[in-house]
């Protein structure tokens, strides 16, 4: 598959402030890649650099095989969807979508056909003569999407496109965008701070933090094998427990908590005996009552401090003997006993689901 976008060591500094450390990234044809990160993580800077609204301090940008580093915005052959829609208030829906085609001096008949198709794709044909102000937020964003795909750009950038919508619409549009992507085979670089959005839509997610890409991979990889505590914490929920490495084998790293209890984790490079570490286990991976305790499972003792009911699941909070608070997410089930505050608990989880971070 060909690469639609390649970044080589792209960085951005404003005087002494580094907004983006040297970054490499590749987006392949038809891929849906998401830049995920909290605000200030550098994802918007990166997007602006790719779009050409900012110049990188260093590095090269290749779009569709051409060096676009210093190319003017308009020549980069990009589509873009903005958080606030950025529709032209003086043009109708039709004219908004037709705008890029008119700029390209497309024949009138072809414009009519393409705009029609694009509006059909987003199911807004019937509103083509309205002005954007007369549409709801969701409809406006659909117009904006139609406008970004109508001229088949090499790459469509989406800058938090769902940020201004309510939860329900957000979910619906997530689905629609994903469906559009799969059906039309467009290449999308998506920016969001919402991890759930990133996980549900993307082929790959580039997790950004402090001006650099912290980890890049499929949502699955990021979730199951986070490489840093930040990645673990940002994607999904996580419990952290302080510990000290006591033993290392080729298969396991064994750590001791302050309570003396021992936890095993899959072996990882870079840890030495006696080193202080942070262990992480996701709340949904912990279960309460032991099947038969095996060598593959870690067990800890704790005391219930509270319970929150979520409907399809419940969260139980517990204080470990080692002192730290921990959350346990379990599917709801009538057989689940009410855990009174103060009740003793036995927690257990699979060794493979234990992560060790420095």
């Amino acid at each position, binding site marked *: 598959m060909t690469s639609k976008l390649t970044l080589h060591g792209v960085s951005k500094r404003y005087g002494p402030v580094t907004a983006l450390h040297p970054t490499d990234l590749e987006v392949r044809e038809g891929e849906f890649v998401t830049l995920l990160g909290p605000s200030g993580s550098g994802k918007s800077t990166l997007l602006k650099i790719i*779009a050409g609204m900012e110049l990188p301090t260093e590095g090269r940008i290749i779009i569709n095989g051409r060096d676009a580093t210093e190319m*003017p915005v308009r020549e*980069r052959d990009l589509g873009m969807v*903005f958080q606030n829609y950025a529709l032209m208030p003086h043009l109708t829906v039709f004219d908004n979508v037709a705008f890029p085609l008119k*700029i390209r001096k497309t024949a009138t008949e072809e414009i009519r056909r393409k705009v029609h198709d694009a509006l059909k794709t987003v199911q807004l044909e019937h509103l083509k003569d309205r002005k954007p102000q007369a549409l709801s937020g969701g409809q406006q964003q659909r117009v904006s999407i139609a406008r970004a795909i109508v001229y088949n750009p090499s790459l469509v950038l989406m800058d938090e496109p769902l940020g201004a919508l309510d939860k329900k619409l957000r979910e619906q549009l997530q689905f629609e965008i994903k469906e559009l992507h799969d059906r039309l085979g467009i290449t999308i670089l998506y920016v969001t701070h919402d991890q759930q959005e990133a996980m549900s839509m993307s082929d790959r997610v580039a997790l950004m933090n402090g001006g650099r890409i912290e980890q890049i991979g499929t949502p699955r990889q990021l979730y199951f094998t986070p490489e840093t505590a930040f990645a673990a914490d940002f994607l999904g929920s996580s419990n952290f427990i302080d510990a000290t490495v006591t033993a290392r084998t080729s298969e396991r790293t064994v750590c001791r908590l302050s309570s003396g209890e021992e936890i095993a984790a899959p072996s990882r490079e870079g840890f030495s005996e006696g080193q202080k570490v942070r262990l992480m286990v996701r709340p949904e991976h912990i279960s309460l009552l032991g099947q038969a305790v095996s060598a593959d499972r870690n067990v800890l003792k704790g005391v219930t401090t509270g319970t929150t009911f979520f409907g399809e699941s419940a969260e139980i909070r517990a204080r470990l003997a080692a002192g730290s608070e921990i959350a346990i997410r379990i599917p709801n089930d009538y057989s689940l006993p009410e855990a009174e505050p103060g009740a003793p608990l036995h927690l257990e989880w699979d060794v493979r689901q234990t992560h060790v971070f420095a």
Partner: protein
Amino acid sequence: MNTLHQSAKATSRLGRPISASVLIAWLVYLFLIVPSLIVVPMSFGTSNELVFPPQQWGLDLYAKALDPAQGWLSAGGRSFVLGLIATGLALMMGVPAAYGLSRTNFFGQKALSFMLLSPIFAPTIVVALALYLYFATLHINGSMLGLVMGHAVIITPFLVVTTLSGLKHLDRNIENAAMVMGATQLQVFFRVVLPAIKGPVLSGSLFAFLLSFDEVIVSWFIARSDQPTLPVKMYSSIQWEVSPVLAAISTFLVFITVIVSLVSAFAQPENTDGF
């Protein structure tokens, strides 16, 4: 509970402090229009001296104002044409400049914007003297060209200011979107920015036209003495006497403006983002 709370607030909105401010606003409106209103009855006098209230009533002054031989009509026409051309020139230079100023941030940009706006702050008599001396060396005193340029200097900064305020409210991503879609900077300006700031630009142009139409000091210096603008003709006429024809002309202008503004106010759609 909620509705109760709201209704309580509604009365507080109509309560004393707000209505006092409305009262003062009305006093200011009154202050602004009363002199014009006093001029109206004077314009229906018959005497050749300004008298209030007139001793006799008639339309003589209007007949005089509209008599081509008196030159008021041609002066009015000249001012109108001058105002249109100067406003046109101001539009052509001022709107792009405002766009350029609002979308760049380079070294010396503050200084440049100060320079472009400075005619607002330069005393008109100084500008008049400067232009007069300068145009004299260029031999364009007394020409329409000189008048147009003089007026453009004075009114363009006002247009730049109103355009800038319009641009401030424009979502810059709309321009980014257009550029990403392949529009050149000129296309962005003409097809995206200009239509979007139509309202403020229009109200700014109207203001600029008014300023030009009303301008007396620069025109006094630059206009040919046998081809005066309307305010210059008014001003030169009072060197000898305050002819009440001025009252008729003022009333006539007020009347026309009110009609034109009423029509345009109702013809324009809501929400064009102007005043």
